[in-house]
């Protein structure tokens, strides 16, 4: 299954400071060090990951692989990040399903960021094989004063159905950045929900979603940002739509304080004709031009 692992984890897993590989509902391999501890939850329902305060540049890989058809794996991963710690967490789920049964992974990730800690969380979803593949990731993040959470999610084709929910609560001076990249095709369905509460002064959230919807696929993007105090949010949802695809963007920004500054931008449209024409004058065919524009857009 190492090829599936390569699809969801960019770095070499042996080089990570710690890791936990979960395959078909069970932990199969694990590494810890003195700063990063991994503890099982009862009934192999998931893990608690404890990062010591002041940990510098730790890398944690927590891939999940499902290769048996018909598995429905629900896993709870809780990250407890100590004060001033700075870590990169690479999560990803690869489903290889060549049978007719549905394979499903529901990952529930909770992040508890202590004061001034910094986390970069990278998540990649990858599906292969003709069997039905479903991902339903739920992410909850609690950001204490001065902490920073940077979430990057990528899902390029291969997943039949996803409902993604991301919730965050931000205290004073906390910063949340979310970058989502999504490509759907065929009959795929992808729904994303961001619910962000800016509770502390000068908390800020930056949510960027770039997506491409093709063929008969459907995408829905909801962002619900609440500014409870002097805070800042910028949400941008940018979608390229092709063929019979449908894209729905529902922006909600709710300022409950006069000094909250909340911005939402959403744009859905097909590839600009001018972009295609320019690339064709450089010798690309229409197909090649489209490919280059889409790859750049999702880069």
């Amino acid at each position, binding site marked *: 299954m190492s090829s599936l692992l390569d699809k969801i984890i960019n770095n070499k897993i042996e080089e990570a400071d710690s890791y936990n590989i979960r395959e078909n509902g069970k932990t199969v391999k694990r590494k810890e060090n003195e700063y990063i501890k991994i503890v099982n939850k009862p009934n192999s329902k998931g893990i608690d990951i404890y990062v010591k305060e002041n940990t510098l540049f730790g890398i944690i890989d927590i891939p999940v692989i499902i290769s048996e058809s018909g598995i429905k794996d629900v896993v709870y991963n809780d990250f407890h990040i100590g004060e001033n710690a700075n870590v990169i967490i690479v999560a990803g789920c690869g489903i290889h399903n060549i049978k007719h049964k549905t394979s499903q992974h529901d990952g529930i990730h909770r992040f508890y960021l202590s004061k001034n800690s910094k986390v970069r969380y990278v998540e990649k979803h990858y599906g292969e094989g003709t069997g039905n593949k479903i991902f339903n990731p739920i992410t909850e993040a609690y950001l204490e004063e001065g902490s920073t959470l940077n979430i990057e999610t990528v899902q390029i084709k291969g997943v039949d159905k996803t409902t993604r929910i991301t919730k965050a609560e931000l205290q004073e001076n906390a910063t949340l950045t979310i970058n989502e990249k999504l490509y759907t095709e065929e009959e795929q369905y992808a729904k994303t929900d961001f619910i962000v509460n800016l509770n502390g002064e000068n908390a800020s959230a930056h949510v960027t979603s770039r997506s491409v919807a093709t063929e008969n696929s459907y995408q829905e993007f909801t962002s619900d940002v609440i500014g409870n105090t002097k805070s800042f949010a910028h949400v941008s949802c940018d979608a390229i739509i092709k063929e019979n695809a449908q894209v729905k963007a529902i922006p909600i920004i709710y300022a409950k304080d006069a000094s909250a500054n909340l911005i939402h931008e959403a744009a859905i449209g097909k590839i600009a004709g001018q972009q295609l*024409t320019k690339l064709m004058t450089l010798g690309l065919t229409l197909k090649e031009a489209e490919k280059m*524009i889409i790859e750049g857009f999702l880069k």
Partner: protein
Amino acid sequence: MLELKNICFKKDGKEILKSINLKLLDDKFYVITGPNGSGKSTLAKIIMGIEKPTSGTILFNDIDITNKTITERANMGIGFAFQQPAVFKGITVYDLLKVAIKKDITKVEACNILSKVGLCALNYVDREVNTSLSGGELKRIELATILARKPILSIFDEPEAGIDLWSFNNLIEVFKQIEEDSKGITLIISHQERILNIADKIILLENGKIKEVGDKSILKDIFSCPKGGDLCE
């Protein structure tokens, strides 16, 4: 050689180009000029294949290209610098130059091309070709993509528009160089006297028609500007 025979173009019932006949010879430097809305950009787009003429024939080195696609024309050696360059999300100047030149080039080679259009290259190679670039910068990158291709027929639609005076001098040098190298046909749409000055031939377009083809003397009425014509500055 490029030959336009009886090119007409209608859009929404409006005649934009009326029976254009034109022969452009190899190794010559042509400038099309004329008032706003006279059809200059439309004519250029018809040559590139971006617009299809309502009637008429286009011959490029004796091959009828009237029904050829933009891509086919590009690969036959026609290049086009847009009056308003396209912007992209996530495509860098380097990406665009690599496509333009049809091969993998190093960043140093990309820099060399950019320096020809007066862009301090290293700062630009990795920039995205998006709206964060200024109008003048976009315009120069647009020119660079054409220079990189070394087309047999190069068309530039108002290359000087949006470029400051200081850089304009460098730009003139670039075009003078093209003119001296005299490789292939250069066709520039311009209102600038200094570009008109280096032309082998000037084509004056008015109201969708070629009014005159000749040297600079055909514009003397306009340059002396009795009625406050377009070309007066």
